[in-house]
């Protein structure tokens, strides 16, 4: 267990080493014809091996996840008592029930829980998240300020994410070696036409591609392991900049550089909100750390409470409010409040898990711990919403969703890795990680944002004809699914879907890349019948489509998407049963499932089935090389079975049934205070049922039927329209021309933003620039030489733009003042000596007048 942070830390650093090596020697290696991808691939495979080792260690130390018969013990008393169908008062009853049920000690055993050996197998730990390892590798503790560090927070979620990210990244590294092989030599970019009518001819950028990929892997893994919000933010920006580099990989193409800029700027909008959230967190708690950490404080070792323990201060780890509506914050120093047993337990766990203290912490002054005071509930909402803003940007949620489809300008392996499986899912991951900090109000907003995104993106995907854009909108839509799941209290459901989606969506992207590689076009209207030419691609992609549609034999077995989508829909039913006012969320989830099945099979049929639409393209198509389709097969196998739970017999210690599967693993990482649901809204009326309620027989059956029914409906429609071509798609489009146009134009979001933000900004900028020029002209009239110099500098530069102008204006002023200062430096010795005396006298006068002498005593 002690080695775990080191192992995972090494897994983070390997890609960084690869990045550095390629940066330093990439150009030389290109000249020597040494393929750079060996380094990058070696690094990421190494990371994968380390991550996998870490998971094995984690499982061997903590034991296999155990399944407890939750239906019988917990869910039934109120899950099936009919309260769910009741109106508002029923909801209240439910909450009360929940409370009553949970106030009995030991009640927590109804869920899958980790058997934590370090604390004697008390299942309480799973609920506190106390089995997480948290500490700092490096920290600075400035005097009088709380510590800021580079640390880690490792729980099952971290470990699972590590394995997922490194595995998919490894597959994509292999794949990219085939996909990007053109870049090994000089490349003629046919999409860029130079002024003289020729196409751009440039040296290949093979090494640069892998260099960015390595940097990305490092940043992504750093983001996953981050032990505090600030570190998350740093890596957040790092993945952002990698995404920027990779989208703009074909920088000479106007569309690529535009898309890169768009992605970068839209993400900054989200990050602005995130910064506000960070500020609110800092103001409220005085720490950024997620977990409890052992630090030295006033000469003794104490456990400093992390954000989670502080905000979840209630006896059942709920967010507690005082009578006057303030949030009650737990003590910053955990063992200072001896009354709280769970804190002591944290302490005990941490003492054993605690890493060696870092050097800074040992300095004589020690870490300063700010004891936070209670603060307004609204501030916690602001913090949650702020952090969520960042997630909206990164995960391309409404209203910042427009950058992701444009990001498809990047090479396809990038789309598969960065823009479907990992980086864009980081927003969802952060919502999951930060979950205990979200109030029910914030969660509801998350749910609605997710729902809107899910629906909107799915509808746009119906009309898109660019194969990668269909997948991009599908990604946005699925991310919306995850957000929705998290927002309605389905923590495991959402993150489970994150993992399964990563596998099948990266598979789908890589298949589409294989198609593009073969056809040299993205347009599905030029494809068709390709399954004969490229069977490997076609059938692995079919697996991907089935997985995303959630295909399976109901109640028996299914592809990975079947399990995760079921879980989300079950949670939606469970949630809307308690909160009938939010029924729409269920319909969005169910409708989204149908649309997903429709557009995915539309894509498959258009590409691979029927007759070729463009004979020329068809003739030139060919199956991709082995290095590309072998990863497809590997991913296809995983897309089928990653959702399965494998029974592992019964535990020797407790006699409980053990399971190995992603959802069971995630259940052990459940954040503090969400076992009994995420709470009850203070400002708004919303009640969160326990996620376990959705496992109740009744809900489960309904959910499976809904999911299956919608998927089949979507599939059948696609089959009829595009497989059999019985209904002409063009005819339908004509019939619903306004709707079709609306969808084809992506709900007019780009146009809307153009009118809403771009134009007014331009207008205001021009206006201000004009005003400035006038104002400064006026100043020029009446000023002497120095001012003229200033305005000359300023005037010339305002033309370049307002921002530039302002900065330069400042610079100009300083320059003038500085030049004036320079004149004092005459070089005349006589004056210098005079200045000594003058300086002394002037200083004396200043000090005398500032009354330091007269009233000194």
């Amino acid at each position: 267990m002690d080695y775990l942070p080191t192992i995972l830390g090494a897994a983070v650093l390997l890609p960084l080493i690869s990045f550095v090596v390629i940066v330093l020697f990439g150009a030389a290696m290109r000249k020597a014809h040494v393929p750079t991808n060996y380094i990058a691939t070696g690094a990421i495979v190494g990371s994968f091996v380390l991550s996998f080792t870490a998971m094995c260690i984690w499982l061997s130390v903590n034991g296999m996840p155990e399944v407890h018969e939750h239906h019988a013990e917990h869910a039934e008393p109120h899950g099936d008592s009919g309260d769910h169908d009741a109106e508002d008062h029923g909801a209240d009853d439910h909450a009360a029930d929940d409370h009553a049920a949970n106030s009995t000690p030991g009640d927590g055993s109804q869920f899958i829980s980790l058997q934590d050996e370090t604390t004697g197998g008390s299942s309480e730990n799973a609920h506190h998240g106390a089995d997480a390892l948290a500490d700092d590798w490096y920290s600075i503790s400035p005097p009088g300020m709380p510590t800021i560090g580079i640390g880690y927070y490792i729980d099952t979620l971290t470990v699972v994410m590590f394995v997922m990210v490194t595995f998919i990244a490894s597959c994509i590294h292999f794949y990219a070696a085939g996909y990007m092989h053109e870049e090994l030599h000089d490349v003629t970019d046919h999409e860029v036409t130079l002024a003289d009518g020729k196409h751009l001819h440039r040296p290949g950028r093979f090494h640069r591609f892998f260099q960015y990929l390595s940097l990305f892997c490092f940043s992504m893994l750093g983001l996953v392991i981050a032990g505090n919000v600030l570190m998350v933010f740093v890596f957040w920006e790092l993945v952002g900049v990698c995404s920027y580099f990779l989208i703009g990989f074909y920088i000479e193409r106007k569309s690529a550089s535009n898309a890169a800029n768009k992605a970068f700027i839209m993400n900054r909008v989200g990050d602005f909100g995130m910064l506000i959230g960070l500020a609110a967190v800092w103001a409220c708690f005085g720490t950024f750390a997620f977990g409890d950490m052992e630090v030295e404080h006033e000469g003794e070792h104490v456990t400093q409470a992390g954000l989670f323990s502080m905000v979840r201060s209630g006896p059942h780890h709920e967010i507690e409010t005082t009578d006057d509506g303030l949030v009650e914050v737990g003590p910053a120093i955990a063992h200072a409040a001896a009354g709280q047993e769970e804190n002591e337990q944290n302490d005990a766990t941490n003492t054993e898990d605690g890493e060696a203290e870092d050097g800074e912490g040992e300095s004589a002054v020690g870490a300063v711990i700010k004891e936070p005071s209670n603060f307004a509930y609204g501030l916690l909402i602001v913090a949650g919403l702020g952090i969520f803003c960042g997630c909206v940007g990164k995960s391309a949620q409404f209203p910042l969703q427009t950058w992701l489809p444009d990001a498809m300008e990047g090479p396809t392996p990038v789309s598969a890795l960065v823009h479907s499986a990992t980086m864009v899912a980081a927003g969802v991951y952060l919502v999951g990680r930060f979950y205990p900090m979200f109030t029910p109000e914030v969660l509801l907003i998350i749910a609605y944002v997710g729902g809107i995104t899910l629906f909107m993106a799915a509808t746009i995907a119906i009309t898109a004809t660019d194969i990668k854009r269909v997948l991009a909108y599908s990604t946005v839509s699925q991310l919306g699914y995850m957000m929705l799941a998290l927002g309605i209290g389905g923590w495991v459901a959402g993150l489970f879907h994150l993992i399964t989606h990563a596998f099948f969506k990266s598979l789908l992207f890589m298949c589409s890349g294989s198609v593009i590689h073969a056809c040299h076009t993205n347009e599905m209207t030029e494809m068709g019948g390709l399954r004969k030419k490229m069977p490997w691609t076609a059938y692995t992609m079919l697996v991907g489509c089935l997985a995303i549609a959630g295909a399976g034999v109901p109640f028996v077995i299914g592809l990975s998407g079947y399990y995760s989508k079921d879980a989300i829909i079950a949670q939606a039913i469970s949630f809307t049963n308690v909160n009938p006012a939010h029924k729409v969320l269920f319909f969005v989830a169910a409708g989204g499932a149908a649309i997903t099945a429709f557009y995915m099979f539309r894509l498959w049929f258009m590409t691979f089935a029927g007759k070729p639409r463009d004979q020329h393209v068809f003739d030139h198509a060919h199956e991709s090389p082995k290095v590309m389709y072998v990863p497809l097969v590997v991913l296809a196998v995983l897309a089928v079975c990653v959702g399965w739970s494998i029974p592992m017999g019964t535990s020797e210690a407790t006699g409980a049934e053990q399971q190995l599967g992603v959802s069971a693993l995630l259940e052990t990482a459940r954040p503090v205070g969400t076992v009994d649901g995420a709470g009850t809204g203070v400002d708004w009326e919303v009640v969160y049922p326990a996620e376990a309620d959705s496992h109740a027989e009744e809900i489960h059956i309904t959910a499976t039927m809904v999911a299956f029914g919608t998927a089949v409906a979507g599939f059948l429609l696609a089959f009829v329209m595009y497989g059999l071509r019985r209904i002409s798609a063009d005819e339908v489009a004509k019939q619903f021309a306004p709707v079709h146009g609306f969808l084809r134009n992506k709900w007019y979001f780009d146009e809307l933003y153009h009118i809403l933000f771009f134009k007014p900004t331009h207008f205001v900028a021009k206006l201000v620039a004009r005003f400035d020029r006038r104002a400064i002209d006026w100043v020029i009239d009446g000023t002497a030489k120095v001012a003229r110099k200033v305005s000359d500098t300023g005037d010339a530069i305002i033309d370049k733009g307002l921002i530039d102008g302002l900065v330069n204006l400042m610079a100009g002023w300083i320059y003038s003042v500085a030049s004036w200062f320079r004149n004092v430096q005459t070089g005349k010795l006589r004056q210098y000596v005079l200045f000594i005396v003058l300086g002394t006298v002037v200083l004396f006068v200043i000090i005398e007048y500032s009354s330091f002498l007269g009233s000194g005593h």
Partner: protein
Amino acid sequence: MGFHDQISSLVEDTQRSLAMFGPELTLCGTIVLLLLSRLILGDRLSSTLVAFAGTVVALIFALFSWNEIAGTSQEAFTGMLVVDTFTVFFRIFLMAFGVLFVIFTWRSGIPDKEDAADFYTLALGSLLGMCLMVSANHLLIVFLAVEMASVPSYVLAGILKGRRKSSEAALKFAVYGAGAAGIMLYGISLIAGIVGTVHLPSAGQSLANIMANDPSGGVLWVLGLGGLMIMVGLAFKLSAVPFHFWAPDVFEGAAAEIGGFLSVASKAAAIGLLVRMAVGFGYAEEPQHAEPVAQQAASQQALADQSPGTNAAAANPEDGVFVSTNSAQDGAQQPSDNEQENTSEQTPANDGAEDDGAAAEAPSEDAAHTADSLAPVRTYISYLVGLLAAITCTFGNMAAYGQTNIKRLLAYSTIAHAGYMMFAVAGALPLIGTSTSNAEYHIASLAFYVVTYLFMNLTAFAIVAFMRNRTGSEEISDYAGLIRTSPGLVVCFSIILMSLIGLPPLAGFAAKYVVFSTLAESGLMLLLMIGAINTVISLFYYLRVVKAMCLEEPAEGQQPVTFPIWKSVDGWFVLVLTLPVVVFGVFWGPLHDWALAACRDLLP
């Protein structure tokens, strides 16, 4: 005490003191050797080699004395000097600088064969003076040490024979230095006249008594003026505005090597001395109680004559409480003291002072009280230093703005950095009143700054000197396009410049960060803001050099020189000096801890 006893005690004291004087003695020996070797051996023994060996031995002596001194504060030469970890820290610093400087000048070849002996004699002599500056414990030694450090540097500034600018710089430097020294001496005489002693710790105690006795406005005026005048002398060494006028001319006129010497060693010694003076006047070690003014002079006389001895520091820096032997008796006296009734620190703890249980408590109250009478002094010094620092910083950065000559730019940059260092003094001083350990912690941030500053500035000047040897020019425009031909050098120089700005993750950031945290800790928010704004301003002109190197095209028909970083000793010298800038930017804990250890005995 008989005459014989006095003589024997003096002899004993001298022997004891000489043992602690290893590095300085080595320097003296090296100087003698340098002069003799040229007389006797002529060219057969390289002066550079002698100087190198001498500085290395001195460095070893300095390093070895660390453990001997640790935890104690000893006076040497009848109280003229004080040797504590702070002294040793700066000795190590200066000697290490000496070693690097000798290597640097050997590579850049500024002293030709004929001059080498003179050059190193002067440089080592100046270093000796700087060692005395940081261990000064006596106002006269303060003056002597400053002069001892300055006079050789006047000559060094003019060492480039036959260059008009160099000679002019030397003359300006000398005259300006003389003027500043005169004012400083005047200030010392004013202060000494009021406090009645020139022994620094005694002067502090005496000052505490004077302040506790509600001095008249006139006395305060003279004290203030005296302090200001001493500050002028130090400000001259620090090249603080408005006493900086010599700096740009000297830096431009003298060789870059001398620029490095003056900006690093000289400035470090000056800041060390500033700390000594500020602490000496702002902090009185043993509580002294108000006596009738008539008796004061006598008692101070006694103090001044007191036989020098070892004051073992019985301090517990962890919690800022120190134990003094006569505390109970002091506590008993206190309530009867009318003049102190109205001071704020009068607490019931004093009444219980006779009680053994409360005895431990009483001294801290006492300390707080006596220190309190010096509080206005500290505020005054802090204000004065802070004011100078703010002006210096702002002016230095602004003036650097329009420079086209890289040496002149660096000259103003060093002025600005002197300002940042003085910020730390201004910030740490007021903290003495609340917690001495906290104040020590923050003085340590200054020591830390000085060390990182060595690497940044010496490397910058080294690059300038090496470039001068290759291009014969020191204009920024001649650095244009350097990235094409010498990428390694450009990377190193860029790192140095970014570190000078204070960008993370470089040492300059760490240094600036600890200094600014000092300001934040003592609540000097205005200074903090000035410092922050200045950092932004400095960004422009440092990056201008980077821009010239990386983005600008060289002038028509000119080919930038090649300076391969791997293939020459010069390159390696630059590389090895750049490395700590990066390393200390990330792992500054150990260095900071060392600086902290150096300052632990400063406020016993």
